[in-house]
Structures are given as structure tokens and as C-alpha cells.
């Protein structure tokens, strides 16, 4: 089974459960891949010894009744992992070892998986290209000059390069879906509150949501089922019965109404994106779905709204990194204020500082009403747009991103053009809805492009079903050449 790591999670699970391969063999195969893929810089930390230990433990006493029996998984370095360094891609946490495990990762381990390593990401998940990480940028396996998207860029890169059978990321404004789109993988941002935020380094609390990144829609449903669930330690967690997404996965979408919002276009958007969208519509129509033109009139305000709300919350969430109790502390400074100033100046990177400044500004007295309060009102309007549409349609189809993966360094000096990359993903976070990014085609350079399916709150099953049907009929095949090994 030399190419076991090429396979999907569900195929691997089958091999494990039928004892065609041991967990140890599987783990060793991934470790080999990871060691050969250092160029991609997808990992901040590897936990090979611990993983091999866990694999052996599983093989000695296999429990195959679990969703993720014997599966090694690498996860975004934003999830706190007990006794394993957790950096959030930042210098300010570069020596931080939590004494606790995030609820979401604990759920994965409780379902039979174990940790393979921690994946690089934009610093505090702030970025769309994984270039803001203190640990260096991550390279997209699609091409050595391409960004893997962000902020879950280590996750998308590792997944596409077969360094982990599946992974998890977090999505505040597109940080799962955009990198999935850039690497030809499947990424789901669940409904806000479906996955616990406890133990995830916070960026913007009202938007952050963890979700799966996988090779197939079926894999995605397995991972979502394993990681989600009510958590009393998170006050915003939704208390509802757990669903069996993988068991209930169906490819019959006949009669479903798919909304096509006219506002999901930007100036100078490559024609290929439009063509991709058309292709997606046709596939769904051919499967018996009904396409309905809809309007989400406040879409154009989503990005500016997001860039007020997210930095505002971030400026407050990141106040705790002050060098007093844990993490990096500058040795310079003669009093408390100087210690703060130096610690935070040296500990945070430029993008994080930029957002702290924006956030501090929009919350300041005299500006609060004009910015933060106004943004909250617009956010309600954006949410209402979706609510209104969902009285008419079952799901909404849009492109995931306005372009394919861009070049490393291309947008680093132009934050606004970088932010524009999130234009199709951000409205979903503001509305707290679930959305799935599916690989749908390649542009003329051969770079992957994704389509996004947006669902009603807690309607993950429906968009997974549509995605499942789409996937079967799309004919997309990810053929990444392993140029790095």
C-alpha cells in the first residue's frame, strides 16, 4: 500500500477497519511524506513519537467502532493541544505549551484519531495567504510560487500534499473555504455555534468557527460529525442533538431549489470564475435541482462590515498577550507600560498590529457609533438578506473566491487587495451560516477553483448532500505533482 496516503479518509478508514493496513503503517507513511515535504513549511510542530505511540496502542487494541479509528491527524496550530506547543503562528506564543486540550480536538481524539502535528497558519488566523505567520509562509503544493490561501494555509497545503488524511481549520472570514479553494480540497465552515470554540486561540469571537478540510465531501461529513457537538464551556455553543452526517449523506438532490445571487461578482473578476459558476449551475440543474435567481442586496457592505467587526473583537481578544503570565516577554523596558509596549511590538507581526490598531480605533469613544455600531446594524441587514432568501431556496451557489491561488508576495504590500480575496466568504461568517467550498475546476493555468454552497443555519446535511452529488458529477480530479520530494 505504497500510495495509501493518496486516498481519501473514508478509503483509509476502510483499510484500517478491514485490517488491510495497521495504524502504525499508516502513521509511518504520513511521517515519511511530512519529512519529505519540509519545503512546503506546512508544519510548525510535529508529534511523531507521540503519534507512533498512539498508533501502536490502537493496533494492540483496535476499536473499530469509532468514526476515526486509528487515524493520525495534523491540525491547525490555533487549536490548543495538551502538552504540545500551540503558537497561533505568532512569536508572542512561540513558547506556549497549553495544559489543556481544545474541545474540538478532544472530540477528534475521542473518536479514535490522534495528533500528528500542528499546522502553520497566518498569525492569529489573520491573513488570506499564510504569509503573516511568524514561522514563515506556507507553499501551495499546486505550485512552488503559489500561496496556499489563508489563514488555514498549513492545513490546506498539508491536506493537498497528502501529509494528513484530513484536517481541521478555523474560519473567521473564509479561512477554511478560501485555502480549500486554492488547493482543490473540500472545506466546510459550519453554522456558528455547531463546533465549540473552547480552547481555540480566539481571533474574532462572534465569527470564529472551526470546521473540517478534507479530500472528499464524504470525508467532510465524517470529520464534521466527529468534531461538532454542544459544549457547556462555550456559551455560544448550540445545544442540539448530534447528527450522523456521513450516515445520512445522500446524492439525490432532485427538486431542491438553488439560489443564484446576482451580487456575487467583482470588477475585473476573471472570466473563468463566471464560467466555473455556470458549470456548477449546469451540474446541479442536470441533477434535477431548480435554479432561482436571488438578490442579497447588502453583499457589497459585507467586507467593510467584516473589517470593522473582526478587528474590533480581535483588538480586545489579543489584549491578554501582554507578557505577564505566559508567552513571549520582552526583556527591554523599565516599567510595566514599557514591558507591554516592547512585548507586543516584538511579539506581534505587522498584520496583527494593523488589525489591533483598526479595532482599537473603531471602538474608541467618538467613533464607536459611526463604525462599530453601524457595522453591527449592517451585519443584521446582511443576515436578513440571507433569511429572506432562504424562504425561497434550499441553498445558495456562489464562487468561493474571486480568483485562483495568487503568487507568494503578490499582495503582501496591498492589504486591501488581500482583503478583497475574502469577498465571497465573509458574508457567510457575518450571518453565522454554514458554507461548503468544493473543488470545481481549474483555471487556464491549471490552478484549482472552488464553488461555495451556502446553507440555512444548522442545515449542514443539505449542503453536504448537494456537495456530494456535485462531486460525483463534476469530474474534478486533483492531480498535484509531488515536485517537493
Amino acid at each position: 500500500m505504497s500510495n495509501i496516503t493518496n486516498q481519501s479518509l473514508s478509503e483509509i478508514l476502510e483499510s484500517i477497519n478491514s485490517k488491510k493496513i495497521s495504524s502504525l503503517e499508516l502513521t509511518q507513511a504520513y511521517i515519511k511524506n511530512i519529512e519529505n515535504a519540509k519545503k512546503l513549511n506546512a508544519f510548525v510542530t510535529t508529534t511523531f513519537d507521540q503519534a507512533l505511540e498512539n498508533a501502536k496502542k490502537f493496533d494492540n487494541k483496535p476499536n473499530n467502532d469509532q468514526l476515526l479509528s486509528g487515524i493520525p491527524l495534523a491540525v491547525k496550530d490555533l487549536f490548543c493541544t495538551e502538552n504540545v506547543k500551540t503558537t497561533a503562528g505568532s512569536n508572542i506564543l512561540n513558547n506556549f505549551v497549553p495544559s489543556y486540550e481544545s474541545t474540538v480536538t478532544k472530540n477528534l481524539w475521542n473518536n479514535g484519531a490522534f495528533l500528528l502535528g500542528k499546522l502553520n497558519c497566518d498569525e492569529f488566523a489573520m491573513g488570506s495567504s499564510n504569509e503573516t505567520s511568524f514561522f514563515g509562509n506556507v507553499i501551495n503544493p499546486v505550485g512552488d510560487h503559489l500561496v496556499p490561501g489563508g489563514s488555514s494555509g498549513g492545513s490546506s497545503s498539508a491536506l493537498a500534499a497528502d501529509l494528513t488524511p484530513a484536517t481541521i481549520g478555523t474560519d473567521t472570514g473564509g479561512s477554511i473555504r478560501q485555502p480549500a479553494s486554492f488547493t482543490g480540497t473540500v472545506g466546510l465552515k459550519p453554522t456558528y455555534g455547531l463546533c465549540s470554540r473552547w480552547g481555540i486561540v480566539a481571533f474574532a469571537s462572534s465569527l470564529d468557527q472551526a470546521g473540517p478540510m478534507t479530500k472528499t465531501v464524504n470525508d467532510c461529513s465524517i470529520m464534521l460529525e466527529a468534531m461538532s457537538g454542544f459544549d457547556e464551556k462555550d456559551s455560544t455553543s448550540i445545544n442540539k442533538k448530534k447528527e450522523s452526517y456521513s450516515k445520512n449523506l445522500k446524492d439525490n438532490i432532485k427538486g431542491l431549489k438553488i439560489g443564484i445571487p446576482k451580487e456575487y461578482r467583482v470588477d475585473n473578476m476573471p472570466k473563468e470564475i463566471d464560467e466555473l459558476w455556470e458549470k456548477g449551475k449546469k451540474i446541479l440543474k442536470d441533477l434535477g435541482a431548480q435554479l432561482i435567481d436571488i438578490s442579497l442586496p447588502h453583499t457589497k457592505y459585507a467586507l467593510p462590515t467584516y473589517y470593522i467587526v473582526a478587528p474590533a473583537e480581535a483588538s480586545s481578544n489579543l489584549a491578554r498577550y501582554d507578557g505577564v503570565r505566559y508567552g513571549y516577554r520582552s526583556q527591554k523596558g523599565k516599567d510595566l507600560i514599557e514591558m507591554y509596549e516592547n512585548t507586543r511590538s516584538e511579539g506581534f507581526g505587522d498584520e496583527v498590529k494593523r488589525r489591533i490598531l483598526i479595532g482599537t480605533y473603531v471602538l474608541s469613544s467618538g467613533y464607536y457609533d459611526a463604525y462599530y455600531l453601524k457595522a453591527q446594524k449592517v451585519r443584521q441587514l446582511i443576515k436578513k438578506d440571507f433569511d429572506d432568501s432562504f424562504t425561497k431556496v434550499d441553498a445558495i451557489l456562489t464562487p468561493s473566491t474571486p480568483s485562483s491561488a495568487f503568487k507568494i508576495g503578490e499582495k503582501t504590500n496591498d492589504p486591501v487587495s488581500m482583503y478583497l480575496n475574502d469577498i465571497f466568504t465573509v458574508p457567510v461568517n457575518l450571518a453565522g451560516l454554514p458554507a461548503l467550498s468544493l473543488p470545481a475546476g481549474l483555471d487556464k493555468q491549471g490552478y484549482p477553483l472552488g464553488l461555495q454552497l451556502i446553507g440555512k443555519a444548522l442545515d449542514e446535511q443539505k449542503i453536504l448532500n448537494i456537495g456530494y452529488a456535485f462531486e460525483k458529477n463534476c469530474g474534478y480530479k486533483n492531480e498535484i505533482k509531488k515536485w517537493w520530494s
Partner: protein
Amino acid sequence: MSKEKFDYFINGEKGKYEVVIGLEVHAQVLSNSKLFSGSSTKFGADPNKQVSLIDSAFPGMLPVINEECVKQAIRTGLGLNAKINNYSVFDRKNYFYADLPQGYQISQYKNPIVGEGKVLLDMPYGSKEIGIERLHLEQDAGKSIHDMDPSNTYVDLNRSGIALMEIVSKPHLRSPDEVNAYIKKLRTIMRYLGTCDGNMQEGSLRADVNVSVRKVGDKNFGTRCEIKNVNSIKFMQMAIEYEANRQVELLEDGKEIDQETRLFDTKKNETRSMRSKEDAHDYRYFPDPDLLPLKLEQKLIDDLKKSLPELPDNKKERFIKEYGLNSYEANVLVSEKEISDYYEEVAKLSDKKLAATWMMGDLFAMLNDKGLNISNSPISAKNFAELVQSIKSGEISGRIAKDVFEIMVESGDNPKKIIESKGMKQQSDPKELEKMINEILLKNKDKVDQYKAGKEKLFGFFVGEVMKLSSGKANPQLTNEILKKILKG
């Protein structure tokens, strides 16, 4: 009593000034665990022994509201006759300090859990109503310790995250005496409710004091200064007195008062500027996205209302009606729940009025003397009732009762037993008394003659001699009667 006698005005050359005071009282909620974490709130633990990952703001930690603290705030609101808001919001108050791990305090800003209410004060000039503006829940910060090391500051986070109720009064207070009465009344109400222990030494009750002055008769308020974090009533009164006089002096000199935050220096007995309005923090309040708005079911509020204990104002009224006490006595006896409980137990078994007199006199003096509370009084309510009854029935005289009381304090014994064993019973047998009186009169024939000649002052002398002869046990009333009869005859 006339109000004028108690007016608190400051006389300047240019006029008479009135002092306007509003208080922001921070009362620590009585609860086993903190407002948003499971850590213990017990006072006096070793530094940093009651700190969870949430209290120390580790990455990814989230607050979860402690329902008991919410209930305590509702109870307190009900005790202040205030409106309970079915919808309230927790906000973040952002600022940096070493003992504030999150970099923000979770508080309530625009939508507090409790709205307007009122508190009644019993002043010598009658009752006065003080308006409550609001009550909100918030987290306490930790403690910075600057004097343990010459060059380092240490931080103790045991207090970090403990629930506080900030109770904001309207600017209705007009003198240090009213402030004293107000704080005591708040404390009493909260102790009755069991929502705050009111222990000022342990910091369970502290206040920021807002002071301004204006000429008597002025309708507009003057510019106010806020004196931060004063932790005893005495210091509050001293700070107000100093601050009001400072402001009057400024006005008299034709200067303006800067709106600022000041600190009270308890050693120098003066207030000092801490920061001016221009330097005021911009706290960047915004709703905490980690917490959903707090929505209260009306049923919860109604149920809590039904389960409230009798509050001091109601109890006072009942004491007046049921036990025939005057307003002053009733006030004193309801000032602490434990005192009122003790009194009611005594009053059930003895003369109600006499019980009040003896409690407020000898019992309180003794407790005060020994630094004890009513709850650890060496005399049980039952024994105290028996003592009162022994006085009332004439078994012992008031004077003897004081001796019995002393012995009760020392031994904790039952008064009957003491009276019995020490032979302290009052002599009320008329024949015995007559015998003693005759003996005295016989011994003092010359004085009897003087008395009869008109020197009536000597009557007291004869009584005293009888008392001496009886070792104080002669029934004074009977002795008087019989003595009078004999001297007349």
C-alpha cells in the same frame, strides 16, 4: 427633630454651600464560585491558589455565567425595590493592567441587570429616600502587590473574576451622616438577603464617592470629582469632608473645579488628583461576543421575589406594631438580621419592651466591650429572656440583675440557677422589710426626727440603709411604700 439642626452646609464668605454626593458601591456577591469560572471565592487563601485558566485568561478560554451570581443580583435588586431587567448585556471594558489578565473587565454598560430602585434611610429628622440608578454585575480584578520586593510587582489573581455588584446611587446624599446611613442600610439589606457579607475589612464592600458642591438654592449641580475605591465608612466621611471643603475653597477663590478622579490618602487625610478628565481612560466598551445577552424569565424573577426573606423596613414596621417598640428601638434591633432574630427569640419568652431596653443597654455594651457579635454572645437568647422575666416579675431588682448579668457572661449559666445558688432573690416579703426598716429607723432616731422636722431629703438615706442591710436585695418599690407609711405614722 428639626431638619435644620442636621443640615450639612459649608459656609463660605460668598455664601452657604450644599454638598451633593452620589456613591458607586462595589459589593462582592456571596457565591461559592466566581462570576464566569468555577474557582473558589473564599477569602484568605494563599496567593494564586484560586485561579482557573479562565481567571488567568489563557488562550482559548471562555467565560460561562454563574447562575447563582445572577440570582444574587436579582435578589439584591428586589431588595432595593428596583426594576429587574429581563434583558441585559455583558460588555467588555478594555484597559491594560498587570492584575487584569484578559486586558478587559467583563461588566455591564448600557444594559444592566437591575434598573432604578430606592433605599429608605432613617435619619434623626425623619426618613429620607435615596434613589438607586442601577445595579450591574461585573468581574473583580486581581491584586497588584508592590511592597513585597524592591524592584518587582507581584500579582495575586485569587480575586480576579470574583463577581461584584456595582450599585450606583442617584446624587441624593447631602452629608457624611447620610452616606454613613446609606452604606449601613445597603449593607443591612444585602446581609438580610445573603447576597453580600458586607465585610469592609476584607474588601467585600468598597465605594467610589462622587462629590460636588453648589450654593444652597442652586438648581444645577456643580462639577463633580470622583474619589476612587474608599473602603471604610469613616474614610468616606473624611474624604467627603475634605473634598467638599477643597471645592468650596476653589469656588470662593473664583477658581473652577476640574472634573477628575481623585484618591483619598488615609494617612494625610486628603484627596489627591489621580487623573483629569482629559487623561480619562477610553474603555472602548462593546458587548462581549463570548457571552450571549442575559435573558431572564419573568417566572425566575417572580419565584425569587416570593422566596425573599423579610427585609429590614418591613421587619421594623412589624416590630413597632407587634412588640410596641418605638421607631428608634425597632431601627437598632433590625440593623442586623442576627440581632433581630435574637430579639424575637427573647421577646417571645419575656416582656417585649423590657427585653429591648436590656438588649440595647447591657447586652450591646458587653458585646461591644468584648468585641463580640450577637451570634457569639456568651448569653443565649433563652437565658437572657429568663433574666428579663426575673426582673419583670420582681424576683430580682434591676440592680441585682446587673450582677446576675455579669455572672451569666462569665459562666454562661442560667439566671435562675445563679439567683438561686447565690441567694440573690429580691426580698419582697412586707413583714421582713418592715423588720429591717424598723431596725434602721431605731438606729437613726436623730435622723428620723430631722426628717419629721421637714428634712425630707433623708428619705433616700433610709432607703439606702435598708438596701445595705439587705445586701441590695430589698424590693425597692415595696421598701419605699413601707418606709413612707412608717415615717408618716
